[in-house]
């Protein structure tokens, strides 16, 4: 069971980091520039309601069963028990899909909620656009970015469990739930469900406490 949990965790870690690495910059750009926002918002709004799970079969077709070990040319590990072997690209892709939209939306919200007075003050104090972006807009957006990340990781965790129950893998905690159901081992099934709930709560609390400090600093002034 430890192995399955580890596989699921590493999958989420990869997919979620990718979502953050792409979602935050995209959100910053969309928040800061009307043109970028207009250009991208239709795409985001069309893509957002598409459930990540709905895309799993498609992404398996696109990425085949390719895994990270193949990506890095480590074919010889194929028949060994190795983490990289279980990192199917299709799975990582739908995790990214599940996590990226809350992050983008949270970041946009953060950038747009910066107080006008703070921007004006920065301008009068001689800050150029980039300087103000770095030292005023990003710090004021941080609480909302963290909120987006929190929603994002929650989504990722839901997506991975569901995805692991479907074809395309034989590892992970979601697979564990389905497999133990088929073997009528309801004790293992229930234990897995408890683990899922516990880890989900940990993620959410962890990001919340990370975001806390920035939230306190901003909200006190309001």
């Amino acid at each position, binding site marked *: 069971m430890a192995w399955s949990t580890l596989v699921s965790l590493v999958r989420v870690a990869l997919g979620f980091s990718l979502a953050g690495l792409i979602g935050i910059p995209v959100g910053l750009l969309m928040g800061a520039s009307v043109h970028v926002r207009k250009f991208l918002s239709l795409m985001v709004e069309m893509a957002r309601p598409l459930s990540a799970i709905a895309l799993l079969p498609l992404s398996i077709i696109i990425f085949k069963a390719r895994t990270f070990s193949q990506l890095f040319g480590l074919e010889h590990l194929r028949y060994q028990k190795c983490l990289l072997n279980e990192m199917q690209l299709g799975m990582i892709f739908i995790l990214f899909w599940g996590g990226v939209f809350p992050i983008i939306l949270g970041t946009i919200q953060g950038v747009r909620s910066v107080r006008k*007075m*703070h921007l004006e003050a*920065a*301008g*009068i104090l001689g800050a150029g656009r980039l300087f103000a972006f770095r030292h005023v807009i990003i710090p004021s957006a941080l609480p909302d970015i963290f909120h987006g990340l929190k929603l994002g990781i929650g989504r990722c965790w839901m997506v991975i469990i569901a995805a692991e129950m479907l074809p395309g893998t034989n590892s992970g905690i979601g697979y564990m739930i389905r497999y133990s159901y088929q073997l009528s081992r309801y004790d293992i099934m229930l234990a897995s469900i408890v683990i899922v709930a516990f880890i989900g709560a940990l993620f959410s609390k962890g990001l919340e406490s990370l975001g806390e400090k*920035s939230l306190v600093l901003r909200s006190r002034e309001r």
Partner: protein
Amino acid sequence: MTALKVTDLSITFRESSREVHALGPVDFEIEAGEFLCILGPTGCGKTTLLRTIAGLEKPDTGEVDIPLHPDGGGPVIGFVFQQGALFPWMSIFANIEFSLKAKKIDKVIRRQKVESILEMMGLSSFSSSYPHQLSGGMQQRAALARSLVMDPDLLLMDEPFSSLDMRTSQELQENLRELLKKASTTVLFVTHNIEEAVYLAGEVIVLGHRPGRIVRREIIDLPDRRSRLSDTFTEYLVSLRKTFESLVSNP
């Protein structure tokens, strides 16, 4: 030397289909080193006037003319907002350092400048505090320090003490007078508090109701050390109050 010249300035706001003529036309100028107070009732457009001079609003007609900095660069303008313009996520030190950092001034010089201004303003012990940990008066003191550290050619102040209680506000007025004696900065100060204007200013301009126009100009001929209880002080106070009352009774 003229530090600021405002010519035929008038401003209209357009909110959806409605047009509000907020200000003007007004004309005035300030000599370098002067302290000019703009006094007016709420809603006369005095804040708008200040924001236009700072370049935050665009005038419909007229011009704001601020001569270039002696070394040839653009004029350095300081602006102290009513309240809450400090960056809440930065320490007091970082807030004051902001403009110097934006100008890419060397770190050692930055530290020296910030520390000397903190000392001058009696804020040294709050250097690493965050704005929300300070009282309202201390916050405004820090905001003033943040503007003064730039060594501005023109300092614009938008009712900076109006949110404070009377005692704190008077204390800050006294501090401001002492600071300016040393620094000889040109100041344009906006307020609706007549006593504050008489205490601080070398000259007072009274603006009437919207659209704000100059209804009176008065040179405050009082010594540098002013007593709020002296006869001449009270005379100015009463005389300006009369102008104010007449504005309220027939706007």
